[in-house]
């Protein structure tokens, strides 16, 4: 056995060419040794030989492999690649180099920018200890598409039963008004948190301490932790802030700590943290809207946690309709702040932009193809002198690699510039970094690799495919040695057709967006302050009472009545201030997005339902916003079965304001059969268009209904002068009325109206950028293709000149062919583009189909100029050649 093992080892290690003979001879030697040695020393001898052979042949093999290894081979390869030669080649055609680099830079910058945003939102874990294990525990209503919040009682119940978490905390987000001494009151995003939350995040305060168990005990002194931003603004970054008193929602609280600006947890940018007592006997969860967050134990997966949470969900839910659609979900916290659908759109956008890069790279490939075709004499000579095909390809690939590397660097730099801008526009969570980090760099590398593959491999393969003898023969001759000339006409026509069509759509869309965003509504925008007020959930619901459907509806109705009464008191309190001219309420203020809803007009065919925008307002709304009454009257208080329409609506359906009065209409409630819904509402007034759909000159029509009892309303305050001055008045009035009223956000009418305009302008810019990239790409490839097709006809042109053609007629012949190709491409493209524009416009809700032909003509003109330039340069070069030279190769 012992010697057999030695032979087994030898068989594994010895190279096959000597294996048999070595084994044969060793057996012979072993036999002769056996005569002289004892059995023990024989084993030693066999194993000494085996190890000796193994060691020596292993060394031998290592030497062999080393001399033949890929590393050494590629090192030789690399030294064979001439970087300086490649650089010289690129420098010799600066137009090509610059356009290719520019093309790739823009192509790479776009997906990198989009990817960075997604990276910041979805890929980066929370920057806390074990941030990737911090999760949101959610009860998702899959039918309604929102999360259900928990009551304090439910939180206490779950805390006892959930075992998958190291730490479990509850929080609620709210906008609070906060003031300090003489400083003016301000609204700040706040979080009511259980003490565990700070331990969960594991981030220590900049100053002082965080909320502790003692702070949520009954009778504990009221405290607050503030964010770095607030601390610097109010206390100038002074450590003496600790122990100071600030008023939060009117209540005096002592500042005990300051959290770093990067914290912002568990909202997006929380600036105020308040202790949240969740003990059942306290049950003071504001609004009854608790949310759960936890740090998973290291050995628990999301799936396990989710099934545990499913088991803990209440079986008999009475707090929500269609309770069977409630599902447990455990999601990484970092992803929680953005809807999953947004993530889907985001990734789709990145994929589309990568595709755009692929197209850009394909255009660069076209350029290189044309350039390589012009260089095929050079390549043929190198091949004839002994350069292998692999070596020629490597040289060409090196050039592509250099172009791509430059493109990638420029692209990443461009993306960084855009990201710096985006950082001020996008409101990202405080903890996320919108930056080019390691993951983004890997993405950049992957894109660069894709670009090299698309832009480099094809042309290099094609340019080196033909044998050197064939290539040498065709040097300087026309024709299609690369099988490219034949394709060029088709390529030119197709490329033009697609560019014109796509560019046309982009231009028309871009213009439509710009026009759509233009605001021409005559409103006292600067004087009007808007705030959204929220009365929270009814007290019974907050306390977690079990209610039947009917009881819940009754509780809500009573709650809304109370809220409406308080709205009246609030309006009265505010109106007493001298700077305030009028106070009113509405469900919607101009500029806020408002979807059209279907309505039915009396006496009209029911199948011809019309849809329009419907806002609900209180009687003084039109006065407060200076919306002129054109006919009839305003609403009366507590009126229900009436409607006021705007001028556009009256014109569109009745032919004028006066004729609209007395007509009847009714909203069609979703899910109900037309004609079976609601009472008819009589039109009692017609007002001027008041920005129900600002900026849309086509769909400005809309109507107003009386606003009934509501627990969420937009407060509209018309000031004498600056709108922002209303905020302190509002906060003071709310504080003295009912501190449970949450001022969710505030804005001015100007901001509200300009927001959609800004968004549309952003989208328009997106279209224009995409269009510009596409235009650049098509001009580049048009240039390349034209230039190539003319260069490849050098011999034909030479013969024409030799047999007496004048330069003018040659020019006409060459340009004539180019123009025919362009004309064909343009006409097909224009038809396609107009059709596409029609289809695209009909799919979007606003119908601003204007323009089209003008944009298409402009694009065609631009491309034609590029095409002419592309033809002219090579033609001039060819014409300058001595005809004898051009045809000498014959």
């Amino acid at each position, binding site marked *: 056995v012992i010697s057999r093992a030695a032979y087994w080892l030898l068989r594994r290690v010895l*190279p096959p*060419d*000597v294996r*048999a*003979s*070595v084994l*044969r*001879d*060793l*057996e*012979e*030697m072993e036999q*002769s040794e056996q005569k002289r040695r004892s059995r023990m020393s024989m084993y030693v001898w066999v194993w000494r*030989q085996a190890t*000796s*052979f193994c*060691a*020596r*042949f292993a060394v*031998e093999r290592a030497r062999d492999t080393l001399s033949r290894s890929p590393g050494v081979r590629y090192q030789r390869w690399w030294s064979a690649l001439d970087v300086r030669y490649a650089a010289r080649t690129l420098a010799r055609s600066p137009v090509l180099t610059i356009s290719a680099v520019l093309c790739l830079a823009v192509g790479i910058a776009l997906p990198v920018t989009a990817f960075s945003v997604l990276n910041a939102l979805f890929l980066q874990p929370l920057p806390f200890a074990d941030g990737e294990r911090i999760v949101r525990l959610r009860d998702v209503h899959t039918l309604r598409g929102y999360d259900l919040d928990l009551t304090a009682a439910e939180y206490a119940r779950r805390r006892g039963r959930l075992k998958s978490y190291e730490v479990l905390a509850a929080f609620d987000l709210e906008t609070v008004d906060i003031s300090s001494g003489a400083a003016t009151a301000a609204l700040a995003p706040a979080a009511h948190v259980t003490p565990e939350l700070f331990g969960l995040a594991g981030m220590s305060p900049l100053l002082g301490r965080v909320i502790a168990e003692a702070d949520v005990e009954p009778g504990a002194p009221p405290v607050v932790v503030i964010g770095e931003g607030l601390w610097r603004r109010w206390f100038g970054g002074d450590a003496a802030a600790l122990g100071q008193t600030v008023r939060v929602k009117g209540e005096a609280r002592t500042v005990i700590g300051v959290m770093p600006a990067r914290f912002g947890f568990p909202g997006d940018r929380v600036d105020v943290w308040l202790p949240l007592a969740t003990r059942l006997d306290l049950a003071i969860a504001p609004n009854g809207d608790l949310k759960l967050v936890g740090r998973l134990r290291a050995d628990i997966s999301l799936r396990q946690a989710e099934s545990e949470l499913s088991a803990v969900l209440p079986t008999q839910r009475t707090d929500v309709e269609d309770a069977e659609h409630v599902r447990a979900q455990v999601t990484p916290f970092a992803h929680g702040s953005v809807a999953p659908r947004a993530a889907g759109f985001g990734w789709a956008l990145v994929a589309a932009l990568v595709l755009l890069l692929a197209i850009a790279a394909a255009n660069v490939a076209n350029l290189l193809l044309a350039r390589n075709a012009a260089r095929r004499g050079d390549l043929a000579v190198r091949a004839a002198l002994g350069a292998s095909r692999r070596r020629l390809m490597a040289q060409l690939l090196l050039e592509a690699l250099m172009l791509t590397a430059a493109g990638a660097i420029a692209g990443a730099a461009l993306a960084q510039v855009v990201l710096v801008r985006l950082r001020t526009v996008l409101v990202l969570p405080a903890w996320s970094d919108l930056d080019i980090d390691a993951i983004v760099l890997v993405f950049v590398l992957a894109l660069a690799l894709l670009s090299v593959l698309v832009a480099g491999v094809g042309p290099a393969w094609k340019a080196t495919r033909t044998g050197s003898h064939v290539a040498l023969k065709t040097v300087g001759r026309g024709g299609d040695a690369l099988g490219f000339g034949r394709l060029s006409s088709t390529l030119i026509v197709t490329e033009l057709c697609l560019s014109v069509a796509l560019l046309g759509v982009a231009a028309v869309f871009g213009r439509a967006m710009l026009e759509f965003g233009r605001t021409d509504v005559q409103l006292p925008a600067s004087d009007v302050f808007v705030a959204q007020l929220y009365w929270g959930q009814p007290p019974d619901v907050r306390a977690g009472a079990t209610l039947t459907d009917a009881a819940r509806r009754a509780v809500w109705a009573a709650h809304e009545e109370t809220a409406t009464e308080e709205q009246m008191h609030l309006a009265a309190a505010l109106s007493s201030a001298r700077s305030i001219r009028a106070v009113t309420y509405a469900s919607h203020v101009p500029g806020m997005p408002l979807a059209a809803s279907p309505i039915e007009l009396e006496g009209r065919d029911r199948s011809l339902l019309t849809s329009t925008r419907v806002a609900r307002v209180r009687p003084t709304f039109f006065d407060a916003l200076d919306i002129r009454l054109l006919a009839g009257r305003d609403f009366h208080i507590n009126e229900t079965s009436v409607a006021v329409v705007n001028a556009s609506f009256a014109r569109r359906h009745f032919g004028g304001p006066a004729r609209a009065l007395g007509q009847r209409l009714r909203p069609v409630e979703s899910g109900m059969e037309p004609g079976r819904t609601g009472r008819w509402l009589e039109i009692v007034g017609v007002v001027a268009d008041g920005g129900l759909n600002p900026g849309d000159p086509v769909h400005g029509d809309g109507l107003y209904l009386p606003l009934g009892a509501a627990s969420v309303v937009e407060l509209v305050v018309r000031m004498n002068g600056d709108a922002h001055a209303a905020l302190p008045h509002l906060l003071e009035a709310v504080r003295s009325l009912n501190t449970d009223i949450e001022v969710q956000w505030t804005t001015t009418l100007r901001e509200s109206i300009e927001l959609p305009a800004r968004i549309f302008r952003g989208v328009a810019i997106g279209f224009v950028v995409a269009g510009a990239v596409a235009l650049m790409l098509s001009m580049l490839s048009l240039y390349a293709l034209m230039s190539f097709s003319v260069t490849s006809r050098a011999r034909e042109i030479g013969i024409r000149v030799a047999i007496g053609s004048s330069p003018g007629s040659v020019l006409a012949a060459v340009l004539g062919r180019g123009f025919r190709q362009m004309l064909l491409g343009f006409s097909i493209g224009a038809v396609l583009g107009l059709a596409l524009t029609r289809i695209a416009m009909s799919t979007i809700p606003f119908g601003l189909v204007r323009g089209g032909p003008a944009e298409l003509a402009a694009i065609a003109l631009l491309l034609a100029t590029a095409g002419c330039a592309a033809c002219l340069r090579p033609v001039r070069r060819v014409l300058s050649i001595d005809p004898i030279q051009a045809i000498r190769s014959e």
Partner: protein
Amino acid sequence: MPRQSLGEFEQLVLLAMLRIGRETYGVPIVEEIERQTGRGVSRAAVYVALRRLAQKGLVRVRVESSGESPGKPRSMVRIERDALAPLRESRRALTRMWSGLERVLK
């Protein structure tokens, strides 16, 4: 063909083969070197050297047809004519290096 340089051990193997004077195989070569130099030789080293010499084309390897000798067929090696030139070359080099040193080394 570029000139082959020979390692010391390769020289020993080639010289042993010349001394044997006919087609031979590993075992006799090992024995011949041991007999002439009077010291033990690593058998593995001999086979490695033979393989290298074969790769350089100085030695031709032939596998015995069955029945030529008892047991499994052996790999027989024969020195190539090409091997003589490098051998002569190294002898010349060594002789020149030795000449005139007799007194020093006596």
